């Protein structure tokens, strides 16, 4: 079982994700350069945080056209597990795999701090290791993490149980306190907090470990 980690020009959490998967969980990984299109032999794909293509135009707007993402879209369509963290979440919304958009934080500042969250796993395969309503803390580090979507669509997402992670002290003005969203099928998760930075007690807690450990099945 090998996990693919997409590397765009400007990704900067790809190594952190590798460490969390290989160092903390013993899961082999393979970096996928943005121009690659071979996902053969991969069990799951992670889109890491960073500033893909300099976040020119809009966050994730250019990354969306990377050749590797056509394959990721196909992989997700076949039910393959796909995780987008921070910039990866922004890419998933630009790609249309998750609805809505991430815009400038309401306070205009880049926010980098541990953030309290509430988990509502529903059918999200990535969150199967958490209790419904469980309170956890994960670090956030973003300037554009304010989730925005049409009001009626937000209600629909809530009714479907797709709002799987909520801020309990909203740091960025996200509508509905949305911190993370899952697709209806449960295989595609996008979230602004960084689970890969919370996998060791030595460096900021272990609340993110169970999310990545879901890959151990």
């Amino acid at each position, binding site marked *: 079982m090998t996990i693919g980690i997409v590397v765009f020009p400007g990704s900067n959490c790809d190594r952190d994700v590798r460490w969390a998967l290989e160092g903390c969980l013993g899961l082999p990984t393979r970096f996928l350069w943005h121009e690659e299109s071979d996902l053969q032999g991969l069990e799951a794909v992670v889109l890491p945080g960073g500033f893909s293509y300099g976040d*020119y135009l809009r966050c994730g707007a*250019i990354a969306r*056209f990377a050749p590797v993402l056509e394959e990721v879209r196909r992989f997700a369509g076949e039910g393959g597990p796909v995780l987008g963290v921070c910039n990866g979440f922004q890419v998933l919304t630009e790609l249309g795999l998750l609805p809505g958009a991430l815009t400038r934080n309401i306070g205009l500042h880049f926010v980098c701090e541990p953030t309290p969250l509430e988990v509502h796993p529903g059918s999200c395969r990535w969150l199967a290791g958490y209790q419904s309503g469980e309170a956890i803390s994960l670090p956030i580090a973003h300037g554009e993490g304010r989730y925005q979507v049409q009001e009626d669509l937000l209600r629909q997402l809530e009714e479907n149980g797709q709002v799987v992670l909520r801020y309990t002290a909203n740091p960025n003005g996200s509508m509905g306190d949305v911190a993370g969203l899952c697709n209806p099928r449960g295989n595609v998760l996008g979230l602004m907090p960084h689970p890969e930075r919370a996998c060791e007690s030595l460096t900021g807690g272990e609340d993110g470990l169970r999310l990545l450990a879901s890959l151990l099945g």
Partner: protein
Amino acid sequence: MPHFHARVQVSLRPSVLDPAGEATRAAAGRLGVSGVTRLRIGKAIEVEIEAPDKATAQQQLEFLSERLLANPVIENWTLDLIDTAGGPA
């Protein structure tokens, strides 16, 4: 006080490299639109301003454009004073 509406267009000077424009042009090709030969990204700034008369509004907007909205070293700007929405207060 009369109320004026203006649009200031700020663009990079032609000699200044626009990496964001180049990256966006490359993405256009990936979307299948291959004929884009030039793509430059600027800013369109909407301004509403109160001033005693149109000439004063024009003068203040030019000052704003030159000193705040654009950096004349690397950017050009154009000012479009669109309308005088409100009457005298």
